[in-house]
């Protein structure tokens, strides 16, 4: 075979690999979304319950011989606020499932990325009986990333954390997402839980496909996350921050023109 043919075949193989990888990520993202949809449905139940309950209360207040208009006015105001809140939950979910999102990298503010996830993750935390804390370091420089892919990784890490704390008998189940500088030229996003921690026997293979010890899920969450992070020129890893539990961190180089 001529070198040129070998080159052509290698290029074709690389291209097929990229397509396959792309498809895999999309599937993994949809799988995560499917799981998220369940907890979003749960979260929508809250404003719906408030709205229906307020509405019926209004009817009763209006049916009184002397209608209590002050109560009705308050209730109507709350109804519209709850309606907007429900809409917000759906808007956030739609943002995540946009499949026409280009895979291109661009300057991204990690705090904004985390902030956009707040509603969704708070819903998920609630469904798992956990408290979610978000600690953002203000004024971080931007990184080169694809926001949707980055959010996919964060959702994956957060979901793992929620599941880890869910089954612990800890009364204060806690998951913390933080952003910070790391060694001056990297940005770190960390997800820390106070669950049982990473099992020793799996810690070496944690990011391998199908290494999962969870009863459910695709077994691809962390593997796909690592692929995405690598494509961003970043690293993913674990450490222990609390006496119990686990921390998963993502580190990305700061965009050069953002470093002054």
């Amino acid at each position, binding site marked *: 075979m001529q070198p040129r043919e070998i080159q052509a075949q290698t290029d074709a193989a690389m291209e097929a690999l990229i397509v396959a990888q792309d498809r895999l990520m999309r599937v993994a993202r949809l799988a995560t979304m499917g799981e998220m949809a369940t907890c979003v449905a749960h979260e929508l139940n*809250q*404003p719906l319950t408030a709205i229906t309950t307020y509405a019926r209360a209004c009817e009763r207040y209006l049916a009184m011989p002397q209608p209590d208009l002050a109560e009705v006015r308050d209730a109507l105001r709350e109804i519209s606020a709850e309606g907007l809140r429900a809409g917000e939950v759906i808007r956030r979910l739609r943002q995540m499932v946009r499949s026409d999102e280009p895979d291109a990298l661009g300057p991204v503010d990690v705090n904004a990325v985390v902030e956009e996830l707040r509603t969704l993750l708070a819903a998920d935390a609630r469904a798992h009986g956990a408290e979610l804390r978000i600690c953002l370091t203000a004024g971080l420089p931007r990184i080169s990333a694809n926001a949707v892919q980055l959010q996919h990784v964060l959702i994956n890490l957060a979901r793992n954390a929620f599941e880890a704390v869910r089954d612990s008998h800890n009364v204060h189940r806690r998951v913390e997402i933080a952003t910070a500088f790391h060694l001056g030229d990297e940005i770190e996003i960390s997800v820390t839980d106070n669950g049982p921690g990473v099992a020793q026997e799996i810690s070496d293979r944690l990011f391998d496909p199908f290494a999962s010890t969870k009863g459910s899920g695709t077994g691809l969450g962390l593997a796909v996350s690592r692929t995405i992070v690598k494509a961003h020129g970043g690293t993913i890893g674990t450490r222990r921050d609390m006496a119990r539990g686990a921390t998963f961190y993502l580190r990305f180089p700061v965009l050069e023109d953002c470093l002054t």
Partner: protein
Amino acid sequence: MEKPQRKPVIMVVDDDSGVRNAMRALLKSVGLESQLFASAQEFLATWQPSQPGCLVLDIRMPGMSGLELQEQLNLRGAVIPVIFMTGHGDVPMAVEAMQQGAFDFLQKPFRDQDLLDRIQKALVKDAERRATLGEHNRIRSHLEALTAREREVLDLMTQGKQNKAIAQDLGVSPRTIEIHRARVMEKMNAQSVAELVRMMLDLKHAR
């Protein structure tokens, strides 16, 4: 009968302020008093077991869940009826709650009338339980007024023994037993031996 009844209060525990405030509005619209709590811990910190009413509890909450709160209340021997609010996928949790003695459960979002009906039933149940408890306490205080000998006589009476047999058992005269017997009936505020037997059975089944 003896003391004026305290007004029942519906205690709502839900971490969602929208749901909590809507419940308050609904309960007020039918003249029911409510107290709102954002967490199980907040509820436990101010809870007065003597307050009649019922508890409307979200089954999923960060921190202590509704199920865990129910467990805590059971440990403390609480009698207050608990109505759980659940999401759509929470049926297994609701089943567990029912097994642990929950009064009922409702899926969010619910029809207001369904909630109000269940609350009314829970309040009736709470009043009944409190009346029973009051009756038990009355019997217990009567029992405490008995002397050791009178208590012995009462136990033998409720075993169905006649004066003569009791006198023989305790080694005293039938006449003495008659006096003890009259005292027991008086102190226990009982009209017949049958009533005494019922009182003692009630107490036995109370625990």
